[in-house]
């Protein structure tokens, strides 16, 4: 099945970012395809390269980058939501790109299922 993912919550603050990642990893392991993950609301904070979690914790941002690198998943950050929260190309982690909400709608049209992870 072809999935698209929407992440609506920030990293560490809310489990949605973790659950979205774990779902994505499991789906890929089972042979499904995930073409795009769209980050909206505080979810855009998943893409900040300034994130520095403690050594003994998971690195949520790097996890996404690795996913994009290894599986070619398109990580898209909403431009309007990002600018509101101080996310720009200057501090955008590797593997992410900033684009418009049209990318979310497009993903919903093209995927078999759009999974929403939020509060």
């Amino acid at each position, binding site marked *: 099945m072809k999935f698209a993912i*929407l992440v*609506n919550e920030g990293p560490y603050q809310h489990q949605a970012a973790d659950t979205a990642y774990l779902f994505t990893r499991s789906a890929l392991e089972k042979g499904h395809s995930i073409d795009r993950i769209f980050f*909206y*609301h505080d979810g855009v904070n998943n893409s900040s390269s300034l994130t520095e979690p403690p050594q003994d914790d998971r690195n949520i941002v790097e996890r996404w980058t690795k996913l994009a690198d290894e599986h070619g998943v398109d990580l898209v950050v909403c431009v*309007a*939501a990002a600018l509101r929260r101080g996310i720009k190309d200057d501090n955008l982690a590797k593997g992410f790109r900033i684009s*418009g*909400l*049209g990318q*979310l*709608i*497009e993903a*919903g*049209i*093209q995927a078999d299922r*759009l999974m*929403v992870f*939020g*509060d």
Partner: protein
Amino acid sequence: MSDEMMDEGGVVKKFMYVNRKAPHGTIYALESLEVVLIAAAFDQDVSLVFVDDGVYQLMKEQKTDGIEVKNFSPTYRALEMYDIEKLYVEKESLDARGLTTDDLLVPVEVMSAAEMADLMAQQDVVLSF
């Protein structure tokens, strides 16, 4: 918007936007509305649902001066101009809050939770905010 973004091979899916949160206090309602306005350009079958505290988003006479945030509620009245005319409100949510359609700033269809569940089951894409 580029032609490329608009061209989805004529696919029309049923998109439902489920609004569950109060208009203020968090940004969910405002940013959800931004998605809906963009979505209107994609010629999809769009419907909006208001449940739980989401019904407060449609309240008449919202005044936000005191909390110094934008009152975006007039935008709901503009949805018609974007050809977004399917607005559904859950009866149980209205009743629990002592509200009726007279309190709302746009015409809506009121339906029970059970009817709402049927409608949701018919959708291709359900976005919940």
